């Protein structure tokens, strides 16, 4: 006998949590699956305060948002499977799940894929040496476990993640040798860059990392200036004494389950790579298969939470039929999403989502099998 549920949610980060809270609050039988023991996804390591409006947790640290959301879900009847990975999506609306002890199946009526994104690597010599870490890995190590990733770090990428993690490294007592950025201007918010500049961290625009030095682990790095064509400029190479190279060079949606579902996938560079086509209700080309958060295009936690609410509310209506409360949540969250994407840094995502909307999916295809 295989267990079934009305709504299965893969991923307990900001998007999955909000989807679960919304749907469960509306009376849907929900199972939330996450491979960590603690919910919150990447919020649990975010020590910085969020921007935006009060409704979007402005002024609150990411890790506190995780605690708040987990507590909100805790009082609802949703079932939470911690330490459990979704290892496959089978035909006939069935998920394969595995924890440390066993493999089991879960049938569902609706599915929300909120699996998030994985960190990108970037091409340079020795980029696989131990000591070359993703910015998220560095955050996990220092902010969750209190372990220093190294003594002196080169940060690659000056987007918000690169700038914020550089600042957090300094807060943890670790030296940041430099931040390099291939583009001619800093990618992230000015406030974050200014904080670093005040601490004397050089932010080198039009610079890139050429190679990591060392045999068994990072023992140095070579950086150089790049031209407008992003090619290294001769005789500008410089050796830095660092033991860690931290990469903050973007994220790629973790779309494996969506590929497996057979839904329409579209390549949209602005959204971070291949994303499943979806409508304004976060529904993919397969009826009742939804997605929310970074897997639907790389943005931020605030939009992930709103997308989660949209998907959760719409899925609830699929299961229980239309209700004024669900429609209210849906409409509100959709309009808030629009508002955020109209902001100064919402351009890229808005552009990506618009490009996605131009594509016409083969709609209503049932799940394979």
């Amino acid at each position, binding site marked *: 006998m295989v267990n079934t549920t009305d709504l299965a949610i893969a991923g307990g980060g900001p998007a999955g949590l909000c989807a679960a809270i919304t749907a469960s609050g509306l009376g849907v039988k929900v199972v939330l699956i996450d491979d960590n023991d603690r919910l919150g996804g990447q919020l649990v390591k975010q020590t910085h305060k969020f921007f935006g409006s009060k409704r979007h947790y402005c002024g609150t640290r990411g890790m506190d948002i995780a605690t708040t959301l987990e507590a909100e879900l805790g009082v609802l009847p949703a079932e939470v499977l911690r330490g459990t990975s979704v290892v496959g999506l089978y035909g006939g609306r069935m998920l394969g799940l595995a924890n440390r002890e066993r493999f089991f199946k879960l049938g569902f009526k609706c599915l929300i894929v909120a699996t998030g994104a994985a960190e990108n690597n970037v091409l340079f010599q020795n980029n696989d040496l131990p000591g070359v870490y993703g910015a998220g890995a560095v955050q996990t190590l220092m902010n969750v*476990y209190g372990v220093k990733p190294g003594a002196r770090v080169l940060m690659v990428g000056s987007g918000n993640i690169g700038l914020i993690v550089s600042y957090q490294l300094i807060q943890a007592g670790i030296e940041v040798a430099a931040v390099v950025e291939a583009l001619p201007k800093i990618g992230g918010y000015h406030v974050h860059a200014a904080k670093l500049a005040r601490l004397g961290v050089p932010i080198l625009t039009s610079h890139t990392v050429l190679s990591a030095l060392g045999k068994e682990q990072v023992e140095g790095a070579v950086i150089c200036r790049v031209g407008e064509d992003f090619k290294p400029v001769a005789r500008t190479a410089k050796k830095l004494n660092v*033991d860690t190279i931290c990469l903050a060079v973007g994220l790629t949606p973790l779309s494996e389950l969506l590929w497996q579902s057979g839904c329409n996938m579209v390549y949209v560079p602005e959204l971070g790579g291949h994303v499943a086509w979806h409508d304004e209700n976060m529904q993919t080309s397969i009826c009742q298969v939804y997605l929310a958060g970074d897997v639907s295009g790389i943005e931020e936690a605030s939009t992930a939470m709103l997308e989660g609410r949209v998907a959760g509310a719409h899925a609830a209506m699929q299961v229980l039929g239309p209700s004024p409360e669900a429609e209210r949540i849906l409409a509100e969250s959709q309009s808030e999403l629009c508002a955020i994407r109209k902001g100064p840094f919402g351009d890229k995502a808005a552009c990506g989502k618009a490009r996605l909307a131009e594509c016409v999916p083969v709609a209503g295809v049932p799940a394979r099998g």
Partner: protein
Amino acid sequence: MHARTYKAKSKVESRKSKVPSSPFGVRRSQLTKGRRIDQHPILTFENSGPIGFFFEGRSMTGRKGETIAAALAANGIRLFRHAEKTGRPRGFFCAVGKCASCLMVVDGKPNTMVCMEPLREGVKVERQSGRGRLRGE
């Protein structure tokens, strides 16, 4: 559960080990001395108890509530395995169970993602070469 809180105070733990100095000028002593964050403006890390484990037969100490990867990093171990085709050294990259760069042999079980595996008392952690071998293979 994690050992982190940011209200309670923590006790600082320092450890020393002998590591050869680097040819590139990074003082390894810096790395080996205080790998635990002892002062932080926002967070304090509570030591919720030592956990003894073995790395390549060497006895090491980590903390309750952390992963094997975090415990190894705190002990200055960065090289986790050698890649299958090239034999190149590898450590963790994503630390959240996505990239599979941190596969090690844990209590004889190869391909264990140590960035997700909780540290247990007495666990035997070994570097993995290539795809690893199952017991009896």
